[in-house]
C-alpha cells in the first residue's frame, strides 16, 4: 500500500523507540481507583434501600433481634401485610393516587400552554413572568399551606383531595412551565412552519406536528409532577384531617406506630420512586439541565 520507501526522512533507519510503560500502568491504576470509588458510592446509595427492604420484609420478632442480620433471615410478608391492611392506609394510598393524577392533569393543562408561549412567542412581560416563576419556586411550602388551610376551611375545600390538588398544582406549576417550555423549544420551529405552509391552522399545526413531537417530554414532566405530589408531606398534612394522603398518614401516625409499621410505610413510598427514576433516566439530565436556568 505504502508508496515509495522514503529514504530521505526514512523511518526504517531509526532505531526502535523504547516505550516507557509506567505512565500506562499509572493510567490503568487510576481507572481502577475510579471504578472502586464508583462502586463505593453506589453502595452508599443502594445499601440503605436494601436495608429498609429487608426490614419491611422481616417478622415483627425479627426486628427486635439484636444484632440485626444483614440478610433477609426472618423473611416474612407479615409486616408489609399488616401495614397495608391497617386502617387508613388503603384509603390514603387511593387519596395519594387521586391527588397525584389530579395534580398531573391540572398542572399539565394550565402549565403546558404557558410553556408553549414562552418557547414560541416574544411578548411584553416575558422576563418578569419568568422571574415570577423562579420566585414562586423558592417559596417554602409552609408559607402557602397555613393560610390556604384557613381559606379552605372557610370554603369547604379543607380535608378534600381537591384542596391538596390545588396546592400541589401551585407547587409544581413553575417547574411544569419551565420544563414544557424547554420541550417545546426542542421541537424545531421549521416543522411547525412547514405544517402551516401546507395548510394547517395554527391549532392544527400544534395538534398534528408539535404535540406528537413534544409528547415524550411532556410525559416526563407529568410523571415528575406526579412524583412531586406523591412525595409531598407537609402541605398535605396541614390541608387534611381525615382524608390523608399516604405520606401525610404515615407522618401523622409516626409518633405512635411500631417501627415495623414505619419501615413498611417507608418502603411503600420508595417503590414508586425507584420505578420513576428507571423510566425517566434519560430525561433526567434534560429536565434539570435546560430548564433550571
Amino acid at each position, binding site marked *: 500500500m505504502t*508508496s515509495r520507501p522514503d529514504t530521505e*526522512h526514512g523511518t526504517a533507519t*531509526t532505531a*526502535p*523507540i523504547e*516505550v*516507557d510503560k*509506567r505512565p500506562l500502568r499509572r*493510567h490503568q491504576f487510576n481507572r481502577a481507583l475510579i471504578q472502586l470509588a464508583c462502586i463505593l458510592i453506589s453502595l452508599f446509595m443502594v445499601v440503605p434501600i436494601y436495608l429498609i427492604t429487608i426490614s419491611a420484609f422481616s417478622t415483627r420478632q425479627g426486628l427486635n433481634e439484636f444484632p440485626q442480620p444483614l440478610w433477609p433471615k426472618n423473611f416474612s410478608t407479615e409486616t408489609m401485610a399488616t401495614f397495608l391492611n391497617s386502617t387508613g392506609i388503603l384509603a390514603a394510598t387511593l387519596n395519594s393516587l387521586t391527588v397525584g393524577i389530579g395534580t398531573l392533569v391540572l398542572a399539565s393543562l394550565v402549565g403546558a400552554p404557558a410553556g408553549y408561549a414562552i418557547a414560541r412567542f416574544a411578548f411584553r412581560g416575558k422576563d418578569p413572568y419568568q422571574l415570577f416563576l423562579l420566585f414562586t419556586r423558592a417559596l417554602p411550602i409552609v408559607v402557602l399551606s397555613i393560610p390556604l388551610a384557613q381559606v379552605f376551611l372557610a370554603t369547604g375545600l379543607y380535608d378534600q383531595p381537591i384542596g391538596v390538588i390545588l396546592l400541589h398544582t401551585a407547587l409544581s406549576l413553575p417547574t411544569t412551565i419551565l420544563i414544557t417550555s424547554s420541550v417545546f423549544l426542542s421541537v424545531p420551529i421549521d416543522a411547525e412552519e412547514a405544517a402551516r405552509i401546507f395548510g394547517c391552522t395554527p391549532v392544527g399545526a400544534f395538534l398534528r406536528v408539535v404535540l406528537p413531537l413534544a409528547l415524550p417530554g411532556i410525559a416526563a414532566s407529568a410523571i415528575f409532577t406526579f412524583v412531586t405530589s406523591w412525595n409531598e408531606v407537609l402541605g398535605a398534612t396541614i390541608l387534611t384531617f381525615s382524608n390523608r394522603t399516604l405520606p401525610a398518614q404515615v407522618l401523622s401516625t409516626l409518633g405512635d406506630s411500631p417501627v415495623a409499621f414505619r419501615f413498611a410505610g417507608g418502603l411503600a413510598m420508595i417503590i414508586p420512586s425507584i420505578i420513576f427514576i428507571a423510566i425517566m433516566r434519560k430525561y433526567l439530565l434534560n429536565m434539570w439541565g435546560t430548564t433550571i436556568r
Partner: protein
Amino acid sequence: MADITIQNLVKVYPGGNERANDDVSLHVADGEFMVLLGPSGCGKTTLLRQIAGLELPTSGAIAIGGRDVTYMPVHQRNLSMVFQSYAVFPHRRVRANIGFGLAMRGMSKAEIDKKVDWAAELLQLTPYLDRFPAQLSGGQRQRVAVARAIVVDADVLLMDEPLSNLDALLRLSFRAELKQIVNQIGMTTVYVTHDQSEALSLGDRVAVMKNGRITQLDNPLRVYSHPANTFVGGFIGSPPMNFVDGVVHDGQIDIGGGSFRAPEGAEDGRYTVGVRAEAITLGDPADPHTVPAKVLVVEPLGSATLLTATVGEHSIKVQVPADTQVAAGDQVKLSVPPSAVRLFDLDSGEARTP
C-alpha cells in the same frame, strides 16, 4: 522544537474491532510542516490525538525530540494545539486565553504580558485583548486560538482542521497568513485537514491517509502529479484525475474509442489509465495521436473552462483555457501528452508508472 517519530502505531477504540490507525510509521523532521490529509474516518485525527496524548495507542510508539511520549500524560508533553472548535475558554478574556499555556508553565506575569502582546500584535488582536470570546467574531476567536498556540515555546504545534469552521473567503485569506506565521516561527507542525487545497498549499510534505494507513507520503507537487494510487489521484485535485481502463500495446494506449501514446517504457498490458484534466489539450485534428471526443457540457470557471467530454463510453474532464471557443455538442480532438499519463494496476489501483 523537535522532530516526531511514529513507529508501527495501531489504535483500536475500546469496544470496536476496526483499526482506526493500522501500523502507521511516520517521521516529521524538525521544523517541518506535515499535513495529514484524508476523507473523514481515515484516522488522521486519531493519529493527531495520539501524538497529543488525548488518545492512547493500542500498540506502537511515538517519540518527540527523541524522547518517548507514547503513554506520557498530555500535560507533560510540552505541546501546543489549535482545535477545530477553537476551544477558546469562554470565561477568560482574550489576554488570559492567549497567556493560558504560559501561565500553566509557571512563567512570570511580566514575561507573560510581553509574549502575549507580541502574539496579539502578530495576529492583529491587540484591540481585543480585554474582551471575552463571546464578544468576538468566529474569525477573531480563531486568531485567539492560533495566538495561544504560537505563544508557548512548545516542541510541536498540532492543528486539527483549524480552518474548517471559517467561511470560504476568510479561510482563503487566513490560510496564507497562517503559512506565513508558522514559517516565521519555524515550529514543527502537524496539520490535519480533509481539504486537499489546504494540504497542498500549506504542507512541506503531505501524508495522504486512507483506512487508518498512510497511503502516500510526498511533497505536495508529487502527491498531485504522481499519485501513488487511484485513491490519491481521485481524492486530490479539482476536478479529480480522469481514470479510464485501457490496454497498452506497442507504446500506444487504446482506451476504446481512441488511442494515444503511452509513456516511455510502459509494459504491455491492461491498466487503469489516469490523466489530469488540465494536462489534456484540444489538439490539431490532423495529428494521428489525438482522440476524438464529443463535448457534453461546457462550464466556464473564469480562470479556465471545464469540459465534460465523451470518448467512446468514457466520460472525461478536460480543462482548457478560458478563451477557447467550444460549445456543447462539438466534436473535438483531445491531445494527451505521454508525460502526463499515469498507469495504475487494474485490480489494486497502485501506480505502475515506470
